């Protein structure tokens, strides 16, 4: 039985249709990455699947229970760590996890045992009896994750779990998510970070303006886009001319900023000399050149027409080449 089934799910806020009839299926034991920019409808979708918001159209089921008709059963089987960490600064970490255990209906002794085990697991044993208000952002996220796990949920919803965290804290959360998944937990993860979706997700759904615009494994999505592209850093004032020259060699891609030219090349590295020669003949100075294999950002661009992350260069397959 799939862990999550969504059919034609919709949510309107007055005139605004925040989620416009989405369909998706998440198999048990999968990590599903829900990728999209701010305002795409990710959080609205999560809130509907976790029964915090009623859909205005369509249907969805989680762990075999309808999110509207069987909301209480859904809540018994899911763990949720929302975008806002939703912690009480006056409580200690241990008190919070124990409260969560009580909310989930665990007997007191079992709740205490789970609290101690989870605090240890997320590396918060030493801070367990300090007030949450004294925790760093990373510690708060780890605590939130631990609280979501106290009742060993079948499906775990993580809404942008690493937004605002430093790279080390982000990696810690990723490791934890992988471990949980290895233990059999289905994870539905929303993110605006391409690398996060690429690294963690078995399947990725890309959402933009309330619609799913692409879905598949990260590799299949990238293969669908096809060709790598060359990314050129051009001297100021020559970008337009460089674009004209490159357009004769391959398909131009939407620019990330006003300094780079992106041109798709069918033959990968073999096309680099052609590009360099053409620019050289046109008298255009190239400050740097890289061959970039398709990334989820390229998938995003292909499906939506704009970049998800304007300034970050996706790491997969870059080959820096000096100008």
């Amino acid at each position, binding site marked *: 039985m799939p862990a999550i089934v969504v059919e034609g799910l919709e949510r309107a806020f007055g005139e605004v249709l925040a989620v416009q009839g989405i369909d998706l299926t998440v198999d048990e034991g999968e990590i599903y990455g829900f990728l999209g920019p701010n305002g795409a409808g990710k959080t609205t979708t999560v*809130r509907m699947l*976790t*029964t*915090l*918001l*009623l859909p205005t159209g369509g249907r969805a089921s989680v762990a075999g229970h309808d999110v509207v008709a069987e909301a*209480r*059963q859904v*809540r*018994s089987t*899911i763990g*949720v760590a*929302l975008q*806002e*960490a*939703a*912690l*009480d600064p*006056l*409580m200690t970490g241990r*008190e919070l996890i*124990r*409260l*969560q255990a*009580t*909310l*989930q*209906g*665990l*007997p*007191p002794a*079992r709740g205490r045992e*789970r609290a101690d085990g989870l605090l240890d697991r997320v590396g918060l044993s030493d801070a367990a009896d300090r*007030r949450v208000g004294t925790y760093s952002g990373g510690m708060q996220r780890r605590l939130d994750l631990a*609280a979501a796990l106290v*009742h*060993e949920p*079948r499906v775990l919803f993580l809404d942008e779990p690493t937004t605002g965290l430093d790279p080390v804290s982000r990696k810690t959360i990723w490791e934890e998510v992988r471990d949980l998944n290895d233990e059999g937990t289905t994870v539905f993860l929303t993110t605006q970070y391409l690398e996060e979706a690429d690294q963690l997700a078995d399947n990725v759904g890309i959402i933009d303006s309330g619609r799913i615009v692409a879905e598949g494994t990260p590799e299949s999505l990238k293969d669908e886009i096809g060709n790598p592209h060359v990314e050129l850093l051009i001297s100021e004032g020559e970008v337009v001319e460089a674009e004209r020259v490159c357009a004769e060699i391959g398909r131009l891609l939407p620019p990330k900023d006003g300094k780079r030219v992106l041109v798709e090349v069918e033959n990968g590295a073999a096309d680099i000399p052609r590009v360099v020669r053409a620019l050289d003949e046109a008298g255009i100075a190239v400050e740097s050149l890289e061959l970039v294999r398709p990334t989820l950002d390229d998938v995003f661009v292909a499906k939506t027409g704009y970049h998800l992350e304007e300034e970050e260069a996706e790491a997969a397959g870059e080959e820096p080449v000096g100008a």
Partner: protein
Amino acid sequence: MEAATVRAAAPPAWRANLATIAALMARAKNELIRVPGAAIPGVLAPTIFFLGLNGVFGALTQLQGFETGSYESFIVPVSMLQGAGFTGAAAGVNLARDYEGGWVDRLLVSPAPRWVLLAGNVLAASLRSLVPATFVLSIAFVLGAQWPGLDGLVICYLMVAATAAAAACWGSMLALRFKSQSAAPLMQAGMMALILLTPAYAPLALLQPWLEKVAEINPLTNVLEAARQGFVGGVTWADTWPGLLALAGLLAVLGTLALREMRRTNV
């Protein structure tokens, strides 16, 4: 499988619900104990009102129609109920703040029944109301208020605690309806109006005709008279049951409205 063990060991629903209510009440007390000075405003406001009203209107007992010559005795139940009203309204404000901060989502996403989540907040307010009530009462006794007898005292405290619960239902309803702390003035003013549109300052017969009519239909009048009876005379069942009935009615109505809002948070 361990997950099955976790689920198989779940206690019966009534015990789990009680445990949840107790846990939420324990959390609510943190506000008083762990924030320095947090208890002061809740105690200060009714105390100032008690001392102020006593100092300003104390001479009214010279009028015919007052059952007592001690204005402290007459007015102390009003201040205790005012404290209950403020405490209940504060519970609503805290809920609104919790909503704005995302904490309420944590509660709503759990399998705990909505009435259980509400009960935790309301019962915590009810218990907390005994603090300002006791403080005001102590001051009143120092100033010479009449000892109401044990029965009168118990009934007064019961009225205070139940009024605080009703006020917390009112505050919670507004908090969940407006989802914002900006509804705080409405929470406070609503309870204040209800408590003062009664024979708060003078007996019913000495009120202006329009206020006398309003007080007669205001359920808080019965609550006040039940709370006051020991301080101005003897305790009788005839003066007690209308107050109990009024509170039962208020709790039923306001509790239902609050629960309705709790259930509609996902609309």
